[in-house]
């Protein structure tokens, strides 16, 4: 492949956006230095001249540095501020959340000085107390109280 054919292939790759940095450098050098250009390649020389003036190309080293992956240490963001913020938010939610309204269930009886965790007994005592009060004693008891005749 002669030089001109090679340049034409490089141009095709350049126009397709497939050029490597080395190929681009090769094109720039060719159009910058070549004095005896074929007529159809002359516009490309002007194009590269304009590009050269408008945007000075970074050095190959700079391009390589840019292309190379950053070290893990450089890319890693410090996580502790985010963890601290998440912890503070979680604590705030717990502390500021309204208390649960659900009533805890319990049934305790206290008989003869002893506490009994006996639901049936506690319920029975509660019901009996309410029945006595809402019935206000039965008629017989009321009469015996009124006339003091137990």
């Amino acid at each position, binding site marked *: 492949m002669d030089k001109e054919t090679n340049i034409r292939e490089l141009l095709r790759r350049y126009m397709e956006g497939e050029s490597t940095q080395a190929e681009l450098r090769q094109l720039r050098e060719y159009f910058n230095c070549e004095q005896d250009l074929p007529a159809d390649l002359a516009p490309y020389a002007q194009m590269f001249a304009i590009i050269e003036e408008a945007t000075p190309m970074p050095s190959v080293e700079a391009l390589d540095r840019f292309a190379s992956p950053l070290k893990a240490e450089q890319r890693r963001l410090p996580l502790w501020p985010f963890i601290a913020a998440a912890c503070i938010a979680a604590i705030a939610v717990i502390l500021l959340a309204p208390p649960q309204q659900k*009533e805890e269930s*319990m049934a*305790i009886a*206290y008989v003869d000085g002893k*506490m009994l965790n006996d639901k049936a007994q*506690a319920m029975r*005592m509660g019901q009996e107390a*309410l*029945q006595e009060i809402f019935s206000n004693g039965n008629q017989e008891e009321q009469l015996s109280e009124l006339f003091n005749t137990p």
Partner: protein
Amino acid sequence: MLISIVLSVSAQEGLRINDVFEGEVIAKQFIQESLVKGDNLAPYNLKVLHTAKCIANAKERVTIEHLFEEDMKERISDDDSNMEMESRDGHLYYAIVQLKNSARGTHRYICYQCRDRSSHYDITLVYMEGKASLADLRKTFKKK
């Protein structure tokens, strides 16, 4: 432990009759007490039911009666739908009173009954709260 029973009924705090529930008028071993809360009372549409039955002498009876009457001052009204009361010979015989300062949609009641047994008095005290109205409670607990 005993105090914790009473304090666990938070809405009951501040009532004078708590002295009775806490054993400050009559020693706890002479009181039969029950405390039921939560789902156990769902059939009655109540959330808290706290009862105390005790045997009192004349002095203790007057003290308990006085404490209850103090709490009665916080009644919602004198209307029959909110309270019922009966006195004999200048003493309270029985009372059912709906209290003010209830949480929204919740009613609080205190009840008192005293029976003269010649040598002593049988006294029953009740604190309860829930959505049940006084009419509901009468219907549920009044003996036929």
